[in-house]
């Protein structure tokens, strides 16, 4: 009888855990691309991207022209790696890898823990902020030039 009650409790806990994990997962949809302001010095794009990611706790893994790969890890073992791809017009974020973020791919549909979605969104929001900063500086420089 005692064994049966233990099995029932374990089953209920397993169901609750599965339900909570499923509840915290979302479809992995990349955040909207960030447009590069026309007035911004294009040589400043990779530096502005790197400023955004390091101020959010991400670190650069590798970089090449048109791409900065970066990673973030928490002390609880969650981690994510993404590529920030850029051309003359925009920056896009591409999922690369993750650990302990409940990443699944079923029937072509990717899902992941909502924490990743927030990280990616915040990162792109900071990239936008750094572009705004660069744009304001370009305008200020242009205003000073006679």
């Amino acid at each position, binding site marked *: 009888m005692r064994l049966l009650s233990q099995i029932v409790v374990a089953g209920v806990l397993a169901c609750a855990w599965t339900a909570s994990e499923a509840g915290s997962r979302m479809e992995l949809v990349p955040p909207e691309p960030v447009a590069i302001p026309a007035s911004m010095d294009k040589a400043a794009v990779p530096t502005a991207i790197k400023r955004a990611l390091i*101020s959010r706790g991400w670190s650069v893994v590798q970089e090449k022209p048109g791409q900065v790969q970066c990673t973030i890890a928490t002390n609880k073992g969650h981690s994510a790696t993404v590529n920030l791809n850029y051309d003359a017009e925009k920056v896009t974020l591409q999922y690369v890898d993750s650990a302990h973020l409940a990443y699944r791919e079923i029937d072509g549909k990717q899902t992941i823990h909502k924490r990743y979605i927030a990280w990616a969104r915040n990162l792109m929001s900071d990239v936008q902020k750094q572009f705004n900063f660069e744009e304001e500086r370009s305008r200020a420089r242009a205003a000073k030039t006679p």
Partner: protein
Amino acid sequence: VKLPSRWSALLAAGTLALTGTAANAQWSGELVEPLPVEIPAGVSAASVDTSIKAALYARDWKVVAERPGYVEAELVVRSHMARVGISYDARSVSLKYLASAGMGHRTAKGRTYIYTKYNGWTSTLMTDIAKFIDIEPRSVTEPKVPAAGR
């Protein structure tokens, strides 16, 4: 025991004053200026200036005054305001407290106290400045090759 209404009012006022003092002591701490940030060799003054301003922008500080080697900035969060002066030369960047409002700034027995968030704000800002300077391009200076011996 039923206290006269005047006593009850006094007791309530005393309790509130004690609670307020305790809460004030909890959110107030000694003002600690962050350590200066060292500038690596080969980073230009223009890059340092950009890094400081980019870090301020990222953390919602507003530049209120500037001159070569100096940026004054202000952060307003709800009813709190803090103003700092950031000085830099070829070797380092340093931050000093200038003024504040709604931050419980006070001096007692030669020590300065302020809302504990202030230390966090300035420390985060200086960390960002250090990281931003670190990714700035550097001019490469060729190491001096000693003349070949005869």
